[in-house]
């Protein structure tokens, strides 16, 4: 069968053609919104028009079959339009209040989870993991699923002091906004790459390989036409492996998970913040990574209990002090927590004014 004629550099179709009528009509003229429940909100326009939004959870990895099902629902209740959010949830919108309950019912009947609006845990932004990426030190979707099962009610009903943004990256490339999340899970290697000398000499350019190491841990091994790695200096970033596949870094026991917390991207109250290390290593335990799940829950619930209304995780920690965070959560403080990289000096305490902890 002949293929249709290809076109290039046309870019995506204009968003304008995909806007629901009520959106198109009131574009740029919204007045306020109200959150009606964990997964439903209404936006009211200057014109008096309203649009109701029902948000449902998504595993992000969707079969076309599910997308078709979503389309079916959108046809039935939402004039044939649907939207995805910046955190991969699905939004059903309608100007018609009377459709909300039937829509919710249908969604529930079909097994969809309504929630994620307001001061709750929303969907976990995550990456490919073992599903697709060569560098993955863990699976992404699996941990996300296990965590969200456990935090389910924080998505659907339970309220928190503010939004809690969780993210996960399956290697230190950190695809996503993991470095600025309230709670983030990042997979790390901890084994120094072991040069496969025979492969290396054919596969890899030695100077490039040496140059790829940010800590200057790699040096030539002329005898073997390969390279050597100074274990003391290697911080397992995997950059050399990206450049040279003969430097395998993955290892079932040495690969694991770290948790960093306290980041944010909005500028409300305080400036955007980076997430900071709180747990440097936990082993990979598929299929449900129970310790990771427990750690995330511990942090979330300590925050939920101790933070003031509207404080984000990072704002809460900065108010009480990191030493109190470690005390309240009971997480062990280790050498790994103390920065020993380029910007160490800015993380050290330069005053005798800390709080005592037990």
């Amino acid at each position: 069968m002949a293929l249709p004629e290809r076109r290039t550099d046309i870019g995506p179709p204009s968003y304008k053609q995909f806007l629901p009528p009520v959106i198109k009509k009131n574009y740029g003229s919204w007045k306020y919104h109200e959150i009606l429940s964990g997964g439903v909100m209404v936006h009211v326009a200057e014109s008096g028009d309203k649009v109701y939004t029902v948000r449902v959870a998504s595993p992000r990895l969707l079969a076309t079959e599910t997308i078709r099902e979503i389309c079916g629902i959108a046809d039935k209740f939402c004039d044939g339009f649907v939207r995805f959010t910046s955190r991969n949830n699905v939004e059903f919108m309608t100007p018609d209040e009377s459709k909300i309950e039937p829509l919710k019912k249908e969604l529930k009947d079909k097994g969809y989870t309504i929630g994620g609006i307001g001061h709750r845990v929303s969907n976990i932004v995550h990456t490919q993991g073992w599903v697709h990426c060569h560098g993955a030190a863990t699976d992404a979707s699996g941990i996300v699923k296990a965590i969200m099962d456990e935090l389910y009610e924080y998505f659907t009903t339970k309220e928190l002091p503010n939004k809690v943004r969780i993210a996960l990256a399956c290697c230190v490339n950190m695809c996503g906004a993991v470095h600025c999340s309230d709670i983030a899970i990042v997979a790390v290697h901890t084994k120094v790459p072991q040069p496969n000398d025979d492969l290396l000499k054919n596969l890899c350019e030695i100077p490039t390989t040496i140059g790829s190491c940010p800590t200057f841990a790699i040096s030539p091994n002329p005898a073997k036409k390969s390279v050597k790695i100074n274990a003391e200096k290697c911080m397992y970033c995997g950059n050399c492996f990206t450049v040279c596949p003969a430097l395998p870094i993955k290892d079932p026991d040495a690969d694991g998970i770290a948790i960093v917390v306290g980041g944010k991207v909005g500028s409300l109250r305080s400036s955007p913040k980076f997430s900071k290390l709180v747990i440097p290593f936990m082993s990979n335990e598929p299929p449900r990574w129970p310790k990771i799940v427990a750690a995330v829950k511990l942090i979330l619930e300590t925050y939920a209990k101790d933070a003031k209304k509207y404080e984000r995780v990072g704002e809460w920690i900065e108010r009480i002090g990191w030493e109190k965070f470690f005390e309240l959560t009971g997480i062990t403080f280790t050498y790994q927590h103390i920065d020993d990289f380029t910007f160490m000096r800015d993380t050290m305490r330069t005053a005798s004014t800390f709080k005592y902890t037990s």
Partner: protein
Amino acid sequence: MPKKYDTPLLNELEKGPWPSFVTEIKKAAAWNKMAADELGQLEKSYRTRLVYWKHGGIVGVRGYGGGIIGRYSELPDEFPEVAHFHTVRINQPTGWFYSTDALRMTCDIWDKYGSGLTNMHGSTGDMVLLGTRTESLEPIFAEFSSRGWDLGGSGSAMRTPSACIGQARCEWANIDSLDICNEMTQEFQDEMHRPAFPYKFKIKVSGCACDCVAAIARADCSIIGTWKGDIKIDQDAVKWYAKNGTDIQNWIVDMCPTKCMSYDGKELKIDNKNCNRCMHCISKMTKALKAGDEKGATICIGSKAPIVVGSLLSWVIVPFIKVEPPYDNLRALIRKMIEWWDEYAKPRERIGELIESKGMRSFLEYIGVPPVPQQIKEPRKDPFWFFHGDDIENIKKLEAEEKKTGKYKF
């Protein structure tokens, strides 16, 4: 018929209330061989705790250098259907709005050529079609492009821009984030499809400081809507909030970062010249407070993930700029920025990293933006700074002038 794998480990991830990606893979695996082998290889990864994908190879469609992530299995004998398993990045319609027709159309194409598995959406924003073979790439592209769709970015190129929902459904959008994003996407089609940059370049647009698309943390060019002028206060609505349980003093006034609000139990006041437009009060009392009238954007540059000098948040470069169609000023500005970067960067050096290594002055001078204190959190501390060109000479001239007028200009 797709092969059927025993997946005792993955089955564990079908339990529990959260929607399961395993269920999704199984849905496709029921009829699609690639999806089935993906499931099989994934179960193996779960068993061995190792990933089985090779380094990406270079694959793509004719005339394009990006948009496809090449992926091959390390175990092609064991899982032949994922021997090739490339992803196709389809540039999402800005804002991720779809008609169901359009969505079904994409599903049809994907069912025909691919694994039947997708990511809605990738972290950069693309519709990510997960897994197909090299020989299907051209057909897929022809099918999509003939219907008005195009590939997104990958490699050392302009990447797919994205935007918050903005004026489509948000009362706080100071700028038309969707339109800006769409226009910039169109503007840089060539740069997106033919990687010729030193490294990736990402653009993200948020309508206000809430930054619902996380622009400040993960876009080389982060465009954030803001305003000038006084916040408009509807005192009746303030009363309504007070009556309906809002603790205005504790939750709003005391949390204002600049302490520019006051509330006497009746009237809410804002000292606007000290407001930094953080959005806290507005977001928590949306019926009572509205941003000022003069709308524009703050342009920030440089954010990126940690590899390898450490993660960066974007830095304020242009504190306030009007952004209205046809956005010529914005187009020109971004082009200038990229030009400078393209000229000086080493391979795999992001623009933020280059500014760090080459100095902000070189960048600002090139793009024609003056230094202003809004660009910094605080001035430098240690007494090592450069004087270039006639800096000192100009100071001497100024001092000579001062001698005449008897008035100092610091």
